[in-house]
């Protein structure tokens, strides 16, 4: 039988104790620190967990063994920074199917200190290694913005409008004591910051930090017995397109976004006007614009004005990236976990920059350079 909206809930959620620079923890300990905090949040011990999901090859067994968990369900889906949205979706299906009762999803990344990190070279025989690497890309700041000039030309987006994304997110970060950057910035500040990869400057690129997060999911039926307010999963979606940004079919829109987002809304049975709070993974300043349009919150080419006019800022009608986002809060390398954590806080009513009366939050993630996508719809009310 098809899974129903609200059949599974998040009952434990936490980030690592520290965020930013954590030079005293290897990557595996960042997973564990977040997992122990999430278990404390839910009142659970490792022996209570029977399912584990985390990103990458051989990782579920590393994390399960490190934490002393004997899982009967695992998921090592690794499609980049939105993998956790996919883990939530897969875990909900597993709980629905009876494969596991209590699933732990972990993220830890020593992005800044680089203590035992995951290596990320493009192999010279891979398609990326043959058809992108020879032309000089050096990581996400050179690849993720590749489509931006085409998007800006098509919709007449100015550099000022693209800078405003970072300005608005800093307004949210200013309200968040855990955000890495909290001082207010202006459009001029953004446009005067150091050029990284034209058209993007430093303040339009995400942070690089250490940190992690963990989530614990169980059935809605069992969720009522937990100490935390359940965050019900109303819907979810996932998709992938290509590892090569040069090969995405449309430089002004993400196919993976256009599949994952609408599927999550369909499952949840929601309209856009039902959404009180939104997270769109912002590794770079253009992502909230693509996300708003591809998820259908605004029409094509309308995101620039929607953001410029203040709709996503504190007090606006669609609060977006309320932790400060990857641009100002934190970005370990796989930020999707932090977008989910903020959605959980907002529906629990415990966010530092709490939006009044959030009932429904959408967390939308990207993986790679428009390579993958996952969307999760959360609510504090079971339909």
């Amino acid at each position, binding site marked *: 039988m098809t899974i129903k909206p609200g059949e599974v809930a998040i009952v434990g959620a936490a980030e690592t104790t520290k965020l930013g620079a954590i030079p005293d923890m290897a990557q595996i300990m960042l997973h564990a620190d977040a997992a122990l905090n999430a278990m404390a949040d839910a009142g659970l011990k490792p022996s209570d967990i029977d399912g584990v999901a985390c990103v990458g090859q051989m990782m579920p067994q590393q994390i399960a063994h490190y934490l002393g968990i004997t899982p009967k369900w695992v998921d090592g889906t690794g499609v980049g920074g939105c993998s956790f949205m996919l883990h939530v979706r897969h875990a909900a299906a597993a709980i629905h199917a009876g494969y596991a009762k209590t699933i732990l999803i972990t993220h830890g990344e020593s992005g800044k200190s680089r203590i035992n990190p995951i290596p990320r070279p*493009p192999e010279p*025989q891979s*398609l990326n290694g043959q*058809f992108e690497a020879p032309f000089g890309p050096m990581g996400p700041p050179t690849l993720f913005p590749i489509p931006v000039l085409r998007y800006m*030309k098509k919709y007449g987006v100015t550099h000022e409008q693209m800078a405003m994304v970072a300005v608005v997110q800093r307004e949210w970060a200013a309200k968040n004591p855990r955000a890495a950057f909290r001082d207010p910035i202006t459009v001029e500040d953004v446009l005067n910051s150091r050029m990284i990869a*034209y058209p993007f400057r430093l303040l339009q690129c995400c942070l690089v930090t250490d940190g992690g997060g963990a989530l614990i999911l169980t059935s809605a039926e069992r969720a009522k017995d937990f100490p935390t307010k359940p965050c019900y999963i109303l819907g979810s979606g996932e998709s992938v397109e290509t590892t090569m940004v040069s090969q995405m079919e449309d430089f002004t829109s993400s196919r993976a976004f256009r599949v994952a987002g609408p599927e999550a809304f369909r499952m949840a049975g929601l309209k856009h006007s039902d959404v009180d709070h939104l997270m769109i993974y912002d590794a770079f300043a253009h992502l909230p614009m693509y996300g708003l349009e591809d998820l259908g919150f605004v029409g094509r080419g309308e995101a620039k004005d929607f953001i410029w006019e203040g709709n996503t800022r504190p007090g606006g009608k669609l609060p977006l990236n309320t932790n400060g986002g990857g641009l100002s809060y934190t970005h370990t390398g796989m930020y999707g976990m932090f977008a989910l954590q903020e959605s959980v806080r907002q529906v629990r009513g415990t966010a530092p920059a709490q939006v009044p009366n959030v009932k429904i939050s959408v967390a939308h993630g990207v993986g790679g350079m428009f390579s993958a996508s996952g969307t999760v719809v959360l609510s504090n009310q079971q339909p």
Partner: protein
Amino acid sequence: MTLEPGRPRPEPTPETKFFWDGTKNGKLLLQRCGDTGKPYFPPRPFSPYTGTRNVEVFEASGRATLHSYVIHHRPVPGFKPPYAIAVVELEEGPRMMTNIVDCPQTPEALVLDMPLEVAFTKMDDDITLALFRPAKGA
């Protein structure tokens, strides 16, 4: 032009060897789907449109337009910043990542949709890259 040493070197696989043999011989080779007639890239011995293994290799014109790019300002082995990492749209339809040579690496000189032509650039005895330059007479 000659390339700076240190640029990542592609390693052909059985599926892509024809492409790299082509650039070595001054030909930009693409493949075309036998069912739809549509060209595609990167190389693979079947059509991404229909799954048919009935595909043919053909020589592209080498003409393209500038689809999008970034100008990287930070040091990378094999490159002198600032340098553009570009995606061009070939006349036949497919897009590919490349660099734009014989052209200032500035937003003023690099105008979207400007006409380009292929500039085969030798990396070593086995590998020649398909770079692009502003089209002559454009």
